[in-house]
């Protein structure tokens, strides 16, 4: 190695690293099973209406077809509060692409061929898939849309403050539908035999899948096992089980114990496993002559599906970010005949902070001060709405440290003034925040094997974040033994209950659980435990929840080049500085931030699911049409963090790092593109035509 420095900081290597680089770590579809059958889903080709006739004769006559499942012969499922799971329970069609049946056959080729022979007739009803601001479809979400936040908030008199403000911004920002597209498509193998139901499933929470599926089919949950040792990315799309899991279970009920394998195709994933809904956000900011905010208003309109409500709540990003005596936040939904949206990496914050942080940049231009300085001037001393103290808040430290590393001070603020060859060059900054959450209810078992070797079990899922490694470290640390003395088992309902891998809570929730369980083990069995003893315990309730406002923060910097003739946008350089509490494993944490920023770059430049409103489906439904950042789209990305000790958030002191990295990235890139060109684009993604006029 000559003249090269590794970007990554030291930290234990991923426990499963060897298995992953050789491809031997098993993902759901790869679990070896005997004599499997393959399921090919049948899907609606209309956006609303009902199936009037479904002729399966030709398909059933194909050699090797085992069963064709439709709403006529599917078993009745119990309602579990999730309409996506109620598959084949009626003839109704709520969106194009909906599951209406399945062919189960000896091979995937036979199943796919036979699926094409099923003849479906429909009664078509008029549908509406056009996202827009229209009283006919817009409503205020139920208060329970998000358990933590009500949709609306009002403090002071925003309109009066805005009218009197020395400087104002009033702009509307739009973000498109985006699909998670984890590289591993959703897949499940269902086996229903005398022992019960076994699912090898690609998910973010095996226990959650078990609870829902057991209730759905009405069997004792002790008779259901869900196993997910490795998951090839998820980003929220595997948070809740989707219809294909229920469909595969329905099929497995009819195959006399033969396993049924179902892997969704990339194209099917564009309708069946959720997406980030499009948003239309109006932000109004009013400031005094020095740039201190006097009014903050953020109104967001987001798409939901008519058959299942999902509220992204993007405007909530403006609740606690900056000081502002007058504030109004509203979140509205437009209900359409479309597939159900769901959480996607930093739900709410990713689109919401794009809008807010672009508006703040616009305000800095109006006021004529540096955008970092403007943010510093609007630092709140306590959380603005709740009045609670922050458990820790190091946004300013992130901005200052980032400015230093990025060389921000050399920046000439005038837009459209630097040109290198055919490229206009600019730099931009944006702030980021993401709430620190804690999911209660997890349990871990600490088992002493012998001679100081421990087995630690927790039924959490590592979706690629590095949880397996971080939890092994935390267990070893709490037990005060070397890392190699701990064998961590996770991913399955064979291990104790664990919460969902979501909300950036893994290290906080499961980590605290493992630490508390290790402490209980020591209390119970001492430092010289007998062979085979074990303790199962969970984390106590955190008395500081509700007493402090808890968030992770970050500062994102980008250098952008926009081609003068083509409008092509390139991002040669990015820097992210984060304040996220304790970083358990710097090596894997670095990758988490890097991955978030890379996905943020992808959001900024490429991602857009284009809906054809005439038919209600996504047209660019594969990885050739839906662009995600490829290797050549990414330049240098530097990641760092400030040391932050937060004793309030949880026993580990970790704030969660899975989502903060994607927050603010698109705004930083958009702000840099404005600085490069003088053109303010308020609509993601930043495609070339938007810079040409």
């Amino acid at each position, binding site marked *: 190695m000559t003249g090269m420095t590794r970007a990554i900081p030291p930290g234990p290597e991923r426990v499963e690293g060897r298995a992953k680089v050789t491809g031997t770590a098993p993902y759901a579809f790869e679990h070896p099973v005997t004599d499997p059958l393959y399921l090919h889903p049948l899907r609606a080709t209309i956006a609303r209406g009902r199936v009037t006739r479904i002729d399966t004769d030709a398909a059933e006559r194909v050699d090797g077809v085992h069963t064709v499942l439709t709403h006529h012969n599917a078993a009745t499922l119990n309602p579990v509060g999730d309409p996506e799971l109620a598959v084949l329970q009626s003839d109704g069609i709520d969106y194009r692409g909906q599951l209406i049946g399945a062919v189960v056959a000896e091979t995937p080729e036979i199943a796919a061929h036979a699926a094409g022979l099923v003849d479906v007739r429909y009664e078509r009803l008029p549908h509406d898939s056009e996202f827009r601001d229209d009283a006919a479809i817009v409503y205020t979400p139920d208060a329970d849309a998000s358990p933590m936040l009500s949709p609306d908030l009002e403090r002071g008199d925003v309109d009066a403050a805005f009218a009197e403000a020395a400087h104002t911004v009033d702009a509307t920002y739009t973000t498109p539908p985006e699909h998670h597209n984890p*590289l591993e498509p959703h897949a499940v193998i269902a086996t229903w035999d005398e022992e019960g139901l076994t699912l090898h499933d690609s998910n973010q929470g095996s226990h959650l899948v078990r609870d829902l599926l057991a209730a759905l089919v009405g069997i004792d949950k002790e008779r259901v096992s869900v196993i997910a040792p490795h998951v090839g990315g998820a980003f929220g799309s595997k948070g809740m089980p989707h219809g294909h899991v229920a469909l595969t279970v329905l099929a497995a009920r009819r195959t006399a114990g033969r396993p049924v394998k179902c892997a969704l195709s990339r194209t099917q994933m564009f309708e069946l496993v959720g997406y980030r809904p499009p948003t239309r956000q109006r932000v109004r900011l009013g400031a005094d002559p020095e740039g201190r905010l006097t009014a903050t208003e953020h109104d967001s309109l987001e798409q939901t599906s008519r058959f299942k409500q999902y509220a992204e709540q993007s405007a909530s990003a403006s609740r606690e970010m900056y000081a502002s005596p007058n504030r109004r936040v509203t979140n509205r939904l437009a209900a359409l005949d479309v597939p159900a949206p769901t959480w996607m990496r930093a739900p709410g914050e990713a689109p919401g902070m794009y809008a807010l942080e672009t508006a703040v940049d616009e305000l800095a231009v109006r006021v004529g001060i540096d955008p970092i300085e403007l943010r510093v001037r609007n630092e709140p001393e306590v959380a603005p709405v709740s009045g609670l103290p922050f458990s820790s808040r190091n946004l300013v430290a992130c901005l200052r440290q980032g400015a230093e590393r990025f060389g921000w001070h050399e920046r000439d603020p005038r837009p459209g003034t630097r040109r290198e060859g055919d490229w206009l060059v600019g730099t931009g900054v944006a702030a980021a925040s993401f709430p620190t959450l804690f999911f209660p209810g997890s349990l871990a078992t600490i088992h002493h094997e012998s001679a100081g070797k421990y087995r630690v079990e927790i039924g959490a899922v590592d979706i690629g974040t590095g949880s397996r490694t971080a939890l092994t470290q935390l267990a070893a640390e709490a037990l005060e033994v070397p890392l190699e003395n701990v064998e961590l088992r996770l991913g399955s309902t064979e291990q104790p209950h664990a919460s969902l891998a979501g909300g950036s809570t893994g290290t906080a929730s499961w980590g605290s659980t493992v630490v508390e369980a290790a402490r209980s083990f020591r209390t119970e069995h001492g430092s010289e435990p007998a062979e085979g003893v074990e303790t199962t315990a969970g984390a106590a309730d955190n008395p500081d929840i509700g007493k402090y406002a808890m968030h992770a923060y970050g500062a994102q910097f980008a250098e952008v080049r926009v081609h003068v003739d083509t409008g092509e946008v390139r991002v040669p350089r990015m820097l992210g500085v984060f304040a996220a509490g304790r970083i358990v494993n710097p090596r894997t944490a670095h990758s988490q931030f890097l991955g978030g920023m890379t996905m943020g770059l992808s959001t900024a430049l490429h991602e857009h699911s284009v809906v054809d409103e005439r038919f209600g489906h996504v047209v660019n439904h594969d990885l050739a049409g839906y662009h995600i950042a490829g290797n050549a789209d990414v330049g240098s990305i530097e990641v760092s963090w400030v040391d932050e000790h937060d004793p309030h958030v949880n026993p580990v002191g970790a704030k969660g790092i899975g989502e903060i990295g994607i927050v603010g990235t698109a705004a930083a890139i958009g702000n840099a593109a404005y600085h490069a060109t003088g053109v303010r684009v308020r609509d993601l993604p930043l495609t070339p035509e938007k810079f040409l006029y």
Partner: protein
Amino acid sequence: MDSEITLRVDGRRETLSVDTRTTLLDALRERLGVTSPKKGCDHGQCGACTVLLDGRRATSCLTFAVANEHSEVVTAEGLAEKDEPHPVQQALLDNDGFQCGYCTPGQVCSAVGMLDEVKSGWPSYVTDDLEEPVELDEDEIRERMSGNLCRCGAYANIVTAIREAAE
């Protein structure tokens, strides 16, 4: 319609009868239980299924098994010696060049194939001088590895790893 074919997979000779519609990827994964190559799209758009086919990188989802009679398939699993990962694999481990790992075996095979292409003097879209031997800088690696998507966004570390492995 089924046909019998013989292949070598990671050094083993395999004879099997396959449906003529079966892709090489499905034959490996579903028939032979060789699951190191991954299926990310089945359309040649993601690179997760990349293997070395007669020494060159190829997306195994884009070729039918029956079209590969007598060919030699090497997967990321086959590139590693028993306890000894291939230098590209070791470099990915050293640089944490992955997260979920689903794209990784494809990245590994693609990188190994790519390094060989560079050695043979194959230019890429970003190669300036077509006469001189290729200088494998970061832009060359990024360009040449762009057929392999990584949704976890490990590209920056993948590029460092490949540079390291190439030294």
